[in-house]
């Protein structure tokens, strides 16, 4: 009886852990070969080359834009300074409570504006590079979940998402090929 319980417990936890790693895919429209895309992946250059090569082999027009991030707010505008401003000064506690809302509003405004700045940068990507789709990709090692997402830059809509737990037999190329097939609906 005890053994059965332990086996069931192990099974339960393996099911739970699988649930967090399971693959998902959803597609609103397909991105057919020939489309002009930008692929952004945060990997060493040799891996980036492999990724881009797989797309090129499938006749996608890959634009030369491959930054790991579009905008790093910490570099240019340290919003934490405001928080420091709020606490460094030896004011009374009541004053701090009053000031807290203003500090929170600074953060909120910053996030509203941060998302605007990113969207404007992406809009430039469409107008200056002639890009139709932005493909984001992060590849993980075996048993971990690699993910990819495609955004139509004409309307900023998410058109395809996939989480793919890499299989034992998978290689870097097969995972990228899997994403390309899924994205193109083939």
């Amino acid at each position, binding site marked *: 009886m005890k053994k059965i319980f332990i086996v069931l417990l192990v099974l339960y936890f393996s099911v*739970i852990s699988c*649930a*967090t790693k399971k693959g*998902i*895919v*959803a*597609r*609103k429209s397909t991105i057919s070969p020939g489309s002009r895309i930008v692929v*952004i*992946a*945060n990997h060493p250059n040799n891996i980036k080359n492999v990724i881009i090569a797989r797309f090129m082999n499938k006749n996608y027009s890959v634009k030369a834009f491959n930054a*790991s*991030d*579009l905008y*790093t*707010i*910490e570099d240019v505008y340290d919003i934490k300074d*405001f928080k420091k*401003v709020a606490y460094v*000064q030896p004011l*009374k506690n*009541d*004053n701090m*409570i*009053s*000031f*807290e*809302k*203003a*500090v*929170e*509003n*600074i*953060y*909120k*405004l910053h*996030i*509203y*504006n*941060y*998302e*605007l700045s*990113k*969207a*404007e940068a*992406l*809009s430039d990507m469409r107008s200056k590079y002639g890009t139709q789709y*932005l493909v*984001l990709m*992060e590849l993980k090692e075996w048993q971990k*979940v690699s*993910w990819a*997402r495609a*955004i139509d830059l004409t*309307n*900023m*809509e*998410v058109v395809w*998402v996939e*989480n793919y737990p890499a299989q034992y037999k998978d290689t870097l190329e097969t995972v990228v090929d899997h994403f390309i097939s899924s994205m193109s609906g083939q």
Partner: protein
Amino acid sequence: MLSGTVYARPTVAFGYLANKSGNPNFNYMEIIFPNSFASSFEAEYDCKVVKPLKLNELLEKKQLTLQKYYQDHELPQITKTIGCDLFVFGYFIPLPDNTIKIVLTLYESGSNQIFTFTNIGRMETEIFKIIDRITLVVFDFFEKNGFFMAKPIMPGSSVGLITNLSPTELNVIYAEFLKAGYSVIAIQGNELDCYYACDNKIMSYFQYITTDANSYDIITDWSKFTMTLGRWEGKKKQEWQEDLRKIYDVYDRNYKVLKNTALEKYKNVYPMCDYLLFAVFDSSRKSCWIRAIDVKTKQLILMHPNIVASGLNTDLEKTTRQLITVIQTPTALPQKSKKK
């Protein structure tokens, strides 16, 4: 011997609904409206309501008078004096085309959080509908711990999500929305990672949303803010205090203007985006709270304090499905037979 469940009936006090039209012919409605809301609310909810005239009597015993309008920071003290659980007051303005705009403020005693919402309807033909709508909002807010729905978000509409999720989790929630027939606008998900998503403290700030018509906000009492001014402070201290004053001016008093400017730009940058949906999940992803802004009107339209999926083994997928069910299900008052 007969120990039953004993609970105190909450007390809901209704203040005046101030006439802001400038036309004294409408003054009689300052009491009629809150009386109607109070009666309607009492019919739906097992509580003790206190109407404006009675409330004024209670206050007069304490050498006070019921005011037509209260500043936010006065609410904690006035509710304490009244001894109520919820205080409702507001104002109305008759608009052209025989419509009326009613703005109500709800303050739950001890919460330090204030909820304001606006309702517009036809003065004569729809007056009972307005009362019903307002009763529903008050009921939802009080009974469902801060739930508010001005309108549901139906499949087919476009939703931009701001969450505290990792990229793989973001894909899960995007997939569920796509499967449910929504268009998803890549607001947060247009980069490999999002530096603020993992910061739960920053995300928690979005619980409070201030918009022109509807707002859920914390009360700041700047009257308690003391600044000692004088020559003995020195120039540096005076400059510092001036900076503080400016920060308060820009980021507290004029915050709504700045945010509206940002949202106005969203209309151009994300032209397809109908709704901005903030969804912040707990660490186990088994529950979340949400806030939604209609990008076109820049108004807060939806708040839910705690969405939890039913059943065992709930996960992000199930919680998201429940979230989708919540946002697309219109709210309604319970059946009369179910009155608590």
